C-alpha cells in the first residue's frame, strides 16, 4: 500500500509539473522564512538558559520613585548582596558586578601597543559559583580573590599574548604602575548570554564595593536561590528589608520618614528578575548590554507562521482546483475496493511528499541565507546542526505542513461520490470555489497587512533618523582613548586646536548617544533638602568648548568659559532639569549634591551655581525621553571631540593622527566620525524595518505564485468558453477583463479586511516610541501604497495568463474539444 501510494504520488507530482513546481517553490520559500525566523525566535527565547542554575538565578531590580523621578534600575547598592545572603536563608550565593572601563591593556613589561578593552567588570569571587564558566587556565580557587588580580576571556588573552594559557602572567592596565595578576582565563561567554565580559577584576580591588551606602546604585547583583525556594515568598520579605536598611539612611540624609514618603506616592521597591527573562526585558538603567525586544520576537514569530500559511494555502487551492481532474482515479480506486480512509492516506502521502521536498529545499535555502541575513540584520543566527531538536523540529514541520496543506484537499477528493467520480461528472462545487476565494482573500489580507506595516515601520525609522537631535553630529571627529595619554592629553589638545580646519575641540567621557551616558547622582535646590525636591540627575563632566564643539544651543545664561575661574563650581542644566526642579529663573540658582566624605565618613554637601541652560538634546538614544541632565567642569575624559569646518575630513584625520603620534608614539590611534556611529546605531532599528520589508515582499511573492497558478488553471478550464466568446466577437481586452475582475474583487476585499487590522497593530507598535510620525498621514500613505502594490502585482499576475489565452487561436481550442 505504502509503496503504491509513494509511486503514484511521485508520478502524479511529476505529471503535473507546473503545479508541483509552484507548490514546492512557494512552500520552500515559506519554509526557509519559517526556519530563519524560528532560529531567531529560539535564540531570543533561549538567552542565558545555558547556565545550569538558570532556574534558580535572579537579578535584583529596584523600582525607585521620588518626586518626579521614576526609575527602574538593575544596579543596586553595594551592601545589598551581603544583606540578601545574610538575611534570607533562601539565598545561597550572590555575585556583584561593577562596570568600569574601557581600559587600555597590554602585557606587562612589554613594548606592545595597548589594546582598548571594553566590557570589563569588577566581580565578586563567588562569580564561578553562580554562573557557569569554563576555566581553561588557572585554578578555580584562586579566582577573583586578591586585589589587583583579574581573569581574561580567552579571545582577549589570545589577542594580548597570542595564546590563552596565560594564568600567572601580568598585564598593565591604563599604564598604571601596579601590574595586575592574571589568575585565570575563561572561555568567552556564549552569544546567548546577556553579558560578555572581556576582563573580570577582583572586587577586592574596588573600595566602593565596601561602602555601606544604600542610596547609591551602581552594582549589578545576582542571587542564587536554594533548590525549591519560592521566589514569590522571598520577594514578600523585601519591604521589611527596605525598612531595615534603606529607610534609616533616607531619614539620616534627607530627614524623611516613611509616612511622608508614602503620602507622596514615593517608594523604593526591590524585585527579582529571573535570569532567563533578562534578555527580552532589558530596558532598565544599568544594563550591561542592549538586550532584545520581546515585541520583535512576537512580530517576527507571527510573520513566519503567516508566510508558511500563505504557502500552504497555495497548495490547498491548487489541489482542490485540480481535484476534478483526479475524480476518475478516485472512482476507479473506489470501484476496486478502496475505502475513503485509504484515499485520504494516499492524497496525504502526496502532500507530505511535496512537504518533504519543500522542507529539504527550504532548509537548504535557509542555510544559504543565514550569512546574508546575519550581515543585513546584524544578527548572529547559526543552524545548530548537532542538536537533535533541530532534526525533530524539521520532521515535525514536514508533517505539519503536509497535513495542513493536504488535509482539506484529501478529504474533499476522497469524498467524491463513486458513481459521479467514475463517470467524470464531478464539477468543481460552489462551496469549493467559495472556499478557494476565501483562502485567496486570506492570503492577500495577510500580505497587505504586512505591506502596510512595512511602510509604517520604515517611515517611523526614517523619522527617527532625521529628527532634530539638539546637537550637531555632522563633521564631528572623535578621537578615542585620550585618557591613556594622561599628562600629555593637554598637549595633544593644544596640537589639535592649532590644526587648520578645526573650529572647536573639547575633551570629555560623555558624548550624546555615542558616548558613555550613565552617571547619576542625587541633587536638590539649596534649602530644599527634602525627598520631594530631590532629583536623580545624570551629570557629565565636560571641558571648555563642549557646548560649542557639539553644536548645542544655550537657551539661557552662558557656557563654561576660561574667563570665569569660579566655573569649576558651576553647572549647566538642560531644559528638562530646569522643569523637574521647578525653577522659574534658573540662572544663578544654587544646586546641592554630595561630593566626597568628611573624616567621619559623612557625605559632604557641595553647592554648584547654575550658569546656563542648554536646549534639550537626545543623549540616551533616539527613542527615549530626555531626562534631567547637568554639565559640570572636568578635565579628564576618554574622548577628544573635534569640530571641523572643512569638508575634506580625511586630510584632517591625517593631521590629528600626526599630533597623536607626536605625543604618544606607542599608543594606537582610534577615531570615529559621530554621524557614522550614530547612523550605525539607528541602523539597528532600521535593519528591523529592512528585514521586515523583505519578509513582506516574500509573502506577496508566494501569494502571487498561487494566484498565478490558480489563474492559469482557470484559463485552462475555461479555454473553450474563451474561444466561443472570441468567435462571438469578444475582444482580447474584454477577455482579460473577465478574468482579472474576479481576482481583483478578491484583492479588494482583502484590502478592506487588512486595513483595520494592519493599522490597529501598527498604532500599538508606534505607541512604544516616544517620538513618532503623524499616524493619520502615514496610514493614508501605507494603505494607499499597499493597495496599489498588491492590486498591481495581482493584476499583472492574472492578466499575464489571461492575455495568452485571449491571444490564442480559438479554432485550436474548439477542435481539441
Amino acid at each position, binding site marked *: *500500500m505504502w509503496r*503504491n501510494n509513494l*509511486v*503514484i504520488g511521485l*508520478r*502524479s507530482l511529476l*505529471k503535473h509539473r507546473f503545479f508541483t513546481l509552484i507548490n514546492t517553490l512557494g512552500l520552500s520559500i515559506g519554509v526557509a522564512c519559517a526556519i530563519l525566523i524560528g532560529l531567531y525566535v529560539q535564540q531570543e527565547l533561549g538567552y542565558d538558559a545555558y547556565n545550569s542554575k538558570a532556574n534558580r538565578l535572579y537579578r535584583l531590580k529596584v523600582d525607585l520613585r521620588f518626586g518626579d523621578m521614576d526609575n527602574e534600575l538593575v544596579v543596586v547598592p553595594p551592601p545589598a548582596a551581603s544583606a540578601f545572603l545574610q538575611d534570607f536563608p533562601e539565598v545561597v550565593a550572590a555575585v556583584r558586578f561593577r562596570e568600569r572601563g574601557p581600559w587600555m591593556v597590554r602585557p606587562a613589561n612589554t613594548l606592545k601597543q595597548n589594546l582598548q578593552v571594553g566590557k570589563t567588570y569588577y566581580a565578586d569571587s563567588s562569580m564561578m559559583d553562580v554562573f557557569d564558566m569554563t576555566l581553561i587556565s588557572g585554578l578555580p580557587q584562586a579566582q577573583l580573590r586578591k586585589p589587583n588580580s583579574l581573569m581574561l576571556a580567552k579571545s582577549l588573552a589570545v589577542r594580548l599574548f597570542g595564546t590563552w594559557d596565560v594564568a600567572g602572567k601580568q598585564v598593565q592596565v591604563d599604564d598604571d604602575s601596579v601590574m595586575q595578576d592574571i589568575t585565570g582565563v575563561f572561555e568567552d561567554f556564549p552569544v546567548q548570554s546577556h553579558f560578555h565580559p572581556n576582563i573580570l577584576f577582583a572586587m577586592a580591588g574596588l573600595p566602593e564595593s565596601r561602602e555601606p551606602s544604600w542610596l547609591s546604585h551602581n552594582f549589578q547583583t545576582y542571587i542564587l536561590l536554594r533548590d525549591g525556594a519560592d521566589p514569590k515568598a522571598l520577594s514578600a520579605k523585601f519591604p521589611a528589608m527596605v525598612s531595615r536598611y534603606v529607610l534609616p539612611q533616607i531619614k539620616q540624609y534627607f530627614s524623611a520618614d516613611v509616612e511622608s514618603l508614602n503620602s507622596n506616592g514615593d517608594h523604593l521597591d526591590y524585585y527579582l528578575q529571573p535570569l532567563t527573562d533578562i534578555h527580552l526585558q532589558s530596558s532598565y538603567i544599568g544594563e550591561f548590554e542592549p538586550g532584545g525586544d520581546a515585541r520583535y520576537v512576537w512580530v517576527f514569530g507571527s510573520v513566519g507562521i503567516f508566510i508558511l500559511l500563505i504557502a500552504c494555502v497555495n497548495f490547498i487551492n491548487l489541489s482542490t482546483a485540480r481535484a476534478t481532474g483526479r475524480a*476518475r*482515479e478516485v*472512482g*476507479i*480506486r*473506489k*470501484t*476496486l*475496493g*478502496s*475505502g*475513503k480512509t*485509504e484515499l485520504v492516506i494516499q492524497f496525504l502521502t502526496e502532500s507530505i511528499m511535496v512537504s518533504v521536498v519543500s522542507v529539504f529545499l527550504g532548509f537548504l535555502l535557509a542555510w544559504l541565507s543565514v550569512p546574508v541575513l546575519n550581515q543585513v540584520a546584524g544578527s548572529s543566527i547559526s543552524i545548530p546542526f548537532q542538536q537533535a531538536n533541530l532534526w525533530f523540529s524539521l520532521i515535525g514541520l514536514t508533517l505539519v505542513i503536509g497535513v495542513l496543506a493536504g488535509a482539506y484537499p484529501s478529504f474533499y477528493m476522497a469524498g467524491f461520490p*463513486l*458513481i459521479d467520480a*467514475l463517470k467524470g461528472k464531478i464539477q468543481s462545487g460552489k462551496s469549493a470555489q467559495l472556499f478557494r476565494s476565501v483562502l485567496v482573500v486570506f492570503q492577500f489580507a495577510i500580505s497587505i497587512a504586512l505591506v502596510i506595516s512595512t511602510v509604517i515601520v520604515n517611515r517611523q525609522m526614517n523619522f527617527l533618523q532625521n529628527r532634530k537631535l539638539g546637537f550637531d553630529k555632522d563633521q564631528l571627529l572623535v578621537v578615542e582613548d585620550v585618557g591613556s595619554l594622561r599628562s600629555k592629553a593637554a598637549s595633544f589638545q593644544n596640537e589639535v586646536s592649532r590644526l587648520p580646519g578645526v573650529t572647536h575641540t573639547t575633551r570629555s567621557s560623555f558624548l550624546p548617544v555615542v558616548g558613555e551616558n550613565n552617571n547619576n547622582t542625587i541633587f536638590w535646590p539649596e534649602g530644599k533638602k527634602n525627598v520631594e525636591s530631590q532629583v536623580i540627575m545624570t551629570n557629565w563632566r565636560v571641558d571648555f568648548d563642549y557646548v560649542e564643539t557639539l553644536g548645542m544651543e544655550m537657551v539661557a545664561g552662558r557656557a563654561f568659559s576660561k574667563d570665569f575661574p569660579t566655573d569649576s563650581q558651576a553647572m549647566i542644566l538642560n531644559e528638562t532639569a530646569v522643569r523637574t526642579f521647578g525653577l522659574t529663573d534658573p540662572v544663578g540658582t544654587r544646586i546641592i549634591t554630595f561630593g566626597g566624605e568628611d573624616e567621619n565618613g559623612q557625605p559632604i554637601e557641595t553647592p554648584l551655581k547654575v550658569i546656563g541652560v542648554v536646549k534639550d538634546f537626545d543623549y540616551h538614544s533616539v527613542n527615549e525621553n530626555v531626562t534631567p541632565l547637568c554639565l559640570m567642569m572636568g578635565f579628564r575624559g576618554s574622548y577628544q571631540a573635534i569640530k571641523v569646518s572643512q569638508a575634506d575630513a580625511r586630510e584632517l584625520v591625517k593631521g590629528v593622527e600626526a599630533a597623536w603620534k607626536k605625543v604618544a608614539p606607542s599608543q594606537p590611534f582610534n577615531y570615529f566620525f559621530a554621524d557614522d556611529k550614530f547612523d550605525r546605531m539607528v541602523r539597528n532599528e532600521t535593519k528591523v524595518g529592512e528585514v521586515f520589508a523583505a519578509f513582506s515582499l516574500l509573502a506577496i511573492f508566494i501569494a502571487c505564485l498561487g494566484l498565478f497558478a490558480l489563474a492559469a488553471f482557470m484559463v485552462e478550464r475555461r479555454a473553450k468558453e474563451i474561444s466561443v466568446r472570441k468567435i462571438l466577437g469578444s475582444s482580447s481586452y474584454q477577455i482579460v477583463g473577465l478574468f482579472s475582475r474576479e481576482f481583483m474583487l478578491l484583492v479588494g476585499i482583502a484590502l478592506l479586511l487588512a486595513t483595520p487590522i494592519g493599522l490597529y497593530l501598527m498604532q500599538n507598535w508606534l505607541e512604544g516610541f516616544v517620538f513618532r510620525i503623524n499616524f493619520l498621514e502615514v496610514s493614508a500613505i501605507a494603505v494607499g501604497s499597499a493597495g496599489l502594490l498588491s492590486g498591481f502585482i495581482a493584476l499583472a499576475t492574472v492578466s499575464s495568463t489571461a492575455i495568452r489565452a485571449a491571444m490564442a487561436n480559438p479554432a485550436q481550442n474548439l477542435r481539441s474539444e
Partner: protein
Amino acid sequence: MIRTTNLVKHYRTEEIETTALNEVNIHVPAGEFLSIMGPSGCGKSTLLNILGLIDTPNGGEYHFLDHEVSKYSEKERAKLRKENIGFVFQSFNLIDELSVFENVELPLIYTNMKGADRKKRVEEVLEQMNMMHRRNHFPQQLSGGQQQRVAVSRAIVNQPKLILADEPTGNLDTANGEDVMKILADLNKQGTTVIMVTHSPHNAEFGHRILRLLDGKVVSEDKVGQFHL
C-alpha cells in the same frame, strides 16, 4: 447469485426526474453468462452499476450472494465488491500513473495480500492474458486491445465470483473485440459468472441469455446457448 425484486432507480436534476430503472426483476444464477442489450439511455449501465454495488437503488430489493444489499452502507458494499466482483469498462479505466503490473496489482493491495503473494498472482494473470512482456509499460504506451487485456487482468486478479463488463469492446476494433470476448467466454467456462452490457448483437451471442431493456424495463429474455445449473 443475483436476484432483484422490483428494482427502481430515479435520477433527479433540478426540475426533471428521470426513471432509469422501473421495477426490474432479474435472476442470475452462479456460472451464467448474461448479456444485456438495449438502446442508449435504456438503463443498462445503471443496472450494471447497481448490480456491481457501485450505485444504490431507490426502491426494490437486491440480493447478492444471499445478502440483501440494497440498504448496505458504502463501507459494506466496498467490502463485498472488492472480494467478489471484477469490473471491465468500455474506456478501460486504467490509472495512467501506474504501470501495467501496478494497475493489475491494485485490487490485491486493497485486500491486504502480502507483497510476494501479490507479485506471484499478478504474474500468473499477466501470463494468462499474454501481457507479461508489457508489465512495465504505462497505459498510454499500449494499444486499445492491450489496455483492455490489462483491464480484464485487473478484473480477474482477485478471482472474483462475478465479472461485470460495460461494453468491453466498445472502444476496440473487431479483431481486438473478438479477442476480449473470447477471454470473457473462457473465464465463464472456468466458472466465473459474467454479466455484460453490449450494443453488439454478435457479442451478445457469447452469453447464455440475452436480456433486453427499454426505458428502464426488461422487455424480453432470450436463451442463446446451453446453460445448465
